[in-house]
C-alpha cells in the first residue's frame, strides 16, 4: 500500500501546488522539492528488499469488467526509474524556485503541472497492469503538451510533440490490448512471465506496435524531430521531461518488455538498428548546433539511441550497463540543462556564438557544467565513464553473429567520439576562452546554482564510489533477462579492450574538437535534405487540407445542399422498397369516399397557395387553410380527437407565425429561377414517390391486433369510453410525458433564443418600430428579389 500512498500523495501534491504558489509565490517550490525528496527517501528505504527480489506490490480493483486494476509493482527496474523520477523531480523543483521570476503569473500552473507530470511518470514506471501503464503514458504526453505550451513556434513544437507521442500512445494501447487478449490477462507481470506469448502469431504485430510507442516517446529515428521542437519550453521542463524522465519512458518500455521479446529477432534487430542510427545522427547534428538547448536536445536524442541499442543487445551485461547509463544520463543531462537555464537567465542568451569565458563570472556553474560535460564525454572518475566502459564491453560481447559485435562496437565508438566532441564544444565555448565583448553577466544567486551543482556532484560522487550501484544494476539485469551478470562496477578494470577504445574515443574526440570550425563549416554546406519537423508539418497541413476538402462538400449555408442528398437516399430506399417483391402491395387498397375528393381539390389550391405566396399575409392565410383542411380530413376519417387537436394546433401555429413575422421582413427572399425549377422537380419526385409508397404500403390490412384489443378491452381496463384518449393517458402515458417534455424543452429553447443574449438587454420587442433596423438595405432586398 505504500506505493499507492506515495503515488496518490504525489497526485494530491499537484492539486495543492497552485494554492501553495498563491500563498508563497515561487518559494513554494522549495516545499514541493522537499515533498518529492521525502517521497524519494521513502521509496529508497525499500531498496534492500527490492534488490533481494522482493517486489513491493499494491493492488486495487478498478474496472474489474475490463480487467483494469490499479495494481502497482516495484521491482528493481521500477525502483531505479522511480528514484530517478522523484529525485530529479525534487532537484528540478528546487531549481524552479529561482528560475521563475518572483510574482510571475504562470508559476502556479507550471509547478502544479510539473508535479502532476512527476506523479504520472511515477505511475508509469510502477504500473503492473498493461492498460494502467497506457493511462499513465498518455497522462505524461498530455502534461508535456501543456507544459510546453507557448505561442507561435512554441505552439507548433508542442503540437508536434503531442501528436507524435500520442500516435505512439495509441500504438501502445493497441499493442497492449493485443498482448492482453493473447495472454488472457492484463496483469503485466503475468504477461511477461508467459514465454509462449513471444512466439504466438500475434507477437510480430505486438512488437511493431510497442516499438512504435517506445520510439516515438524516446525520440528515436524517424520520430526524433519532436524533441528539439519541444525545447521552446521553460528550462525546468526541458530538464525534467525532455532530458531526464519523460523521454526515458520509451527506454523503460523497452526494458520492461525485454523479458518477453529480448530474444525475438524482429525486436532485437529493430531496436539495435534504430538505436544505433539515432545515436549517430543525434551526435552528428549536435556537433553543429549553436543554440545550447538544441545542442543538448540532439545530444539527448543521441544518448537515447545509445540506450536503445544497448537494450537491444539484450545480454545481462548490456542491460545492466544500460541501467547504469540511464542513471548517469539523467544526472549529467539534468545538470547541463539546468546550467543552460542559469546562463540564459543571467546572460540573456544561450547562443554559443555569443557566449564565452563565463568561468570567471560563474565559477560554481562552470564547475557543475564541467563535471557534467566530463561525465557525458565519458571521462574518469565520473559515472558516465563507468557506464560507457560497461556499455562498450557489452557491445563487444554482443550475443549473435560475430559481425554484429564488431559493427555495433565500431558505431558506438564513432558515436562516443561525437559525444566527446560536442561535450567539449559545450564546455569550451561557454565557459572558456575570451568573454565575448558587450556581454553583461548578472550574478546568479547561490540558491539558483545549487541545483545543477547538486546533480553534478552526485554524478561525481557515485562515480568515485561506483560499487554502491552493483546490487541495483545486477538486480535490474536479473528481473529483465533472468540472469544476474554479477557485474562489479569499478573505475579501474585493468588494461581491457574497452579502456583502449576509451582512449581511441578521447583521441578522436579531441581531434574532432580541434577541427571544430572545419567540421561545422563542412556540415553546414550539406544541409539535411529531409527534415523530420518539415515532413511532419507538411503531412499535418496536407491532412488538414484534405479534411477541409472532404468537409467542404457538406459545409454550406444552403439548407438544400444537405437536404437533397437526404431526400435522394430516402427516395431511393422508398422506390426500392416498393419495387421489392416482399414489400410490394399486399391486400386490397383502402376504399375512397366522395368527400375525400373535395378535400383533395381544396388542398391542391391551398398548397399551391403556400408555395407561391409572395407576402407573409398570403402565406399565413393559405397555411392556416391547409391546416384546417387536414383537420377536416381527420373528421371525415372518423378521428374527432385528431381533428380537434389539429384545429387547436393550427390556430396556435398561425398565431406564432404571425408573432414571428413581426420580427421578420414583410417580403420573402426568392431564389434564382434555375433553383426554383430544380426544387420543383425534386419536390414532384418526392411527392410522387411518397404517394406511390403510401398507396402501395399503407392501410392494406384489417384492424391491427393491438387496435382490436384496445377497442374491446380499453373501457373495462380504464373506465374511459374514448379509446384514443385512454391510449394517450393510460396505456401509452409515458409517450405523452415525452411529448410534454419536448414542448417544455422547445419552450425553454425559444425563451433562451429570444430573451437571453439579447445585445440590447431589453428582451424581445414585438413591434417593428421598436426593433433595430435590419442591416440589409432596400436596394439589397430588391436585388435579391430580382434574382
Amino acid at each position, binding site marked *: 500500500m505504500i506505493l499507492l500512498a506515495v503515488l496518490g500523495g504525489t497526485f494530491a501534491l499537484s492539486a495543492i501546488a497552485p494554492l501553495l504558489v498563491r500563498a508563497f509565490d515561487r518559494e513554494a517550490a522549495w516545499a514541493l522539492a522537499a515533498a518529492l525528496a521525502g517521497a524519494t527517501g521513502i521509496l529508497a528505504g525499500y531498496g534492500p528488499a527490492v534488490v533481494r527480489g522482493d517486489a513491493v506490490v499494491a493492488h486495487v480493483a478498478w474496472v474489474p469488467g475490463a480487467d483494469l486494476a490499479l495494481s502497482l509493482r516495484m521491482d528493481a527496474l521500477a525502483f531505479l526509474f522511480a528514484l530517478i523520477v522523484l529525485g530529479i523531480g525534487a532537484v528540478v523543483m528546487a531549481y524552479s524556485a529561482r528560475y521563475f521570476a518572483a510574482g510571475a503569473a504562470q508559476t502556479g500552473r507550471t509547478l502544479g503541472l510539473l508535479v502532476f507530470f512527476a506523479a504520472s511518470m511515477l505511475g508509469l514506471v510502477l504500473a503492473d497492469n498493461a492498460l494502467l501503464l497506457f493511462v499513465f503514458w498518455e497522462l505524461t504526453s498530455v502534461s508535456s503538451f501543456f507544459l510546453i505550451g507557448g505561442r507561435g513556434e512554441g505552439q507548433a513544437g508542442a503540437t508536434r510533440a503531442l501528436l507524435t507521442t500520442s500516435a505512439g500512445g495509441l500504438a501502445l494501447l493497441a499493442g497492449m490490448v493485443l498482448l492482453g487478449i493473447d495472454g488472457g490477462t492484463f496483469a503485466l507481470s503475468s504477461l511477461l512471465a508467459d514465454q509462449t506469448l513471444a512466439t504466438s502469431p500475434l507477437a510480430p504485430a505486438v512488437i511493431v506496435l510497442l516499438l512504435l510507442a517506445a520510439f516515438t516517446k524516446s525520440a528515436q529515428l524517424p520520430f526524433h524531430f519532436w524533441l528539439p521542437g519541444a525545447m521552446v519550453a521553460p528550462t525546468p521542463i526541458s530538464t525534467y521531461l525532455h532530458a531526464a524522465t519523460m523521454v526515458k519512458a520509451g527506454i523503460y518500455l523497452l526494458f520492461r518488455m525485454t523479458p518477453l521479446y529480448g530474444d525475438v529477432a524482429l525486436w532485437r534487430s529493430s531496436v539495435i538498428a534504430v538505436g544505433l542510427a539515432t545515436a549517430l545522427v543525434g551526435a552528428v547534428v549536435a556537433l553543429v548546433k549553436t543554440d545550447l538547448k538544441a545542442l543538448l536536445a540532439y545530444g539527448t536524442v543521441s544518448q537515447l539511441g545509445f540506450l536503445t541499442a544497448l537494450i537491444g543487445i539484450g545480454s545481462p551485461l548490456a542491460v545492466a550497463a544500460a541501467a547504469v547509463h540511464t542513471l548517469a544520463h539523467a544526472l549529467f543531462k539534468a545538470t547541463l540543462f539546468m546550467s543552460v537555464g542559469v546562463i540564459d537567465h543571467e546572460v540573456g542568451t544561450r547562443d554559443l556564438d555569443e557566449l564565452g569565458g563565463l568561468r570567471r563570472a560563474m565559477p560554481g556553474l562552470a564547475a557543475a557544467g564541467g563535471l557534467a560535460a566530463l561525465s557525458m564525454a565519458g571521462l574518469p572518475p565520473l559515472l558516465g565513464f563507468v557506464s560507457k566502459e560497461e556499455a562498450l564491453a557489452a557491445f563487444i560481447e554482443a550475443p549473435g553473429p560475430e559481425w554484429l559485435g564488431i559493427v555495433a562496437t565500431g558505431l558506438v565508438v564513432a558515436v562516443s567520439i561525437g559525444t566527446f566532441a560536442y561535450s567539449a564544444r559545450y564546455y569550451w565555448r561557454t565557459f572558456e576562452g575570451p568573454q565575448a565583448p558587450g556581454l553583461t553577466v548578472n550574478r546568479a544567486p547561490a540558491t539558483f546554482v545549487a541545483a545543477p551543482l547538486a546533480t553534478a556532484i552526485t554524478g561525481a560522487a557515485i562515480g568515485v564510489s561506483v560499487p554502491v550501484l552493483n546490487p541495483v544494476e545486477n538486480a535490474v539485469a536479473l528481473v529483465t533477462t533472468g540472469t544476474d551478470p554479477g557485474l562489479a562496477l569499478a573505475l579501474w578494470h585493468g588494461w581491457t579492450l574497452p579502456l583502449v577504445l576509451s582512449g581511441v574515443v578521447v583521441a578522436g574526440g579531441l581531434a574532432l574538437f580541434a577541427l571544430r570550425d572545419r567540421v561545422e563549416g563542412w556540415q553546414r554546406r550539406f544541409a539535411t535534405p529531409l527534415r523530420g519537423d518539415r515532413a511532419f508539418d507538411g503531412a499535418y497541413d496536407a491532412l488538414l487540407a484534405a479534411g477541409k476538402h472532404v468537409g467542404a462538400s457538406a459545409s*454550406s*449555408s444552403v*439548407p438544400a445542399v444537405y437536404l437533397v442528398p437526404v431526400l435522394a437516399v430516402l427516395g431511393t430506399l422508398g422506390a426500392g422498397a416498393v419495387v421489392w417483391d416482399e414489400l410490394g402491395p399486399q391486400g386490397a387498397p*383502402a376504399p*375512397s*369516399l366522395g368527400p375525400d375528393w373535395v*378535400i*383533395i381539390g381544396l*388542398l*391542391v389550391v391551398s*398548397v399551391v397557395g403556400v*408555395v407561391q405566396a409572395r407576402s407573409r399575409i398570403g402565406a399565413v392565410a393559405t*397555411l392556416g387553410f*391547409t391546416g384546417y383542411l*387536414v383537420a377536416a*380530413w381527420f373528421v*371525415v376519417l*372518423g*378521428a*374527432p*380527437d*385528431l381533428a380537434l387537436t*389539429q384545429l387547436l*394546433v393550427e390556430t396556435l401555429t398561425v398565431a*406564432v*407565425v404571425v408573432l*414571428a413575422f413581426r*420580427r421578420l*421582413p414583410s417580403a420573402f*427572399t426568392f431564389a434564382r429561377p434555375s*433553383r426554383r425549377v430544380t*426544387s420543383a422537380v*425534386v*419536390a414532384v419526385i418526392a411527392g410522387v414517390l411518397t404517394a*406511390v409508397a*403510401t*398507396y402501395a404500403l399503407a*392501410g392494406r390490412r384489417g*384492424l391491427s391486433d393491438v*387496435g382490436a384489443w*384496445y377497442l*374491446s378491452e*380499453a373501457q373495462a381496463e380504464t373506465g374511459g*369510453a374514448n*379509446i*384514443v384518449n385512454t*391510449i*394517450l393517458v393510460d396505456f*401509452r402515458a409515458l*409517450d*405523452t410525458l415525452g*411529448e410534454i417534455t419536448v414542448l417544455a424543452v*422547445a419552450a425553454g*429553447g*425559444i425563451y433562451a*433564443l429570444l430573451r437571453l443574449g*439579447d*445585445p440590447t438587454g431589453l428582451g*424581445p420587442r414585438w413591434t417593428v418600430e421598436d426593433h433595430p433596423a435590419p442591416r*440589409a438595405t432596400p436596394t439589397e432586398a430588391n436585388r435579391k428579389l430580382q434574382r
Partner: protein
Amino acid sequence: MTAAIIVGLLTAGGTYLILQRGLVRVVLGFILLGHATTTLLVAAGGVGRRGIAILGQQGVAEQPADPLPQAFALTAIVISFGITAFLLALAARGRTVLGGDDVEQPAEPDEADRG
C-alpha cells in the same frame, strides 16, 4: 388512394419549400411535411374503417377506425407544433443576428455580389 394523394401533395409542397431561400419558407415547408407525416400515420391504420372509436351506449361503432395510429398521430401533431415554434424563434433570432431571414447570405458573398 385518396390518402396517398393527400400525403403526396403535402410532401411535394413541403419539399419544395424547404429547398428555398429564407428561413420562414423553410419553416412553412416543415409544417406541410408535418401534416404529410400525420396523415401518413393515420393512413397506416387503414382509411377504409371510419367509425369513431368512442364507445357509445350501443358499444363500438360499426367499422371502427384503428385507435392506435390516431394516438400516435396526435402525439406527432403536438410535437411538430413544438418544433415549429422553436424553428420560428430561430428564424426570428437569426434576423437579429444575421440582419435578415436569408441564412445563405454570409457564406455566399460572391453570389450576392453578382446580384
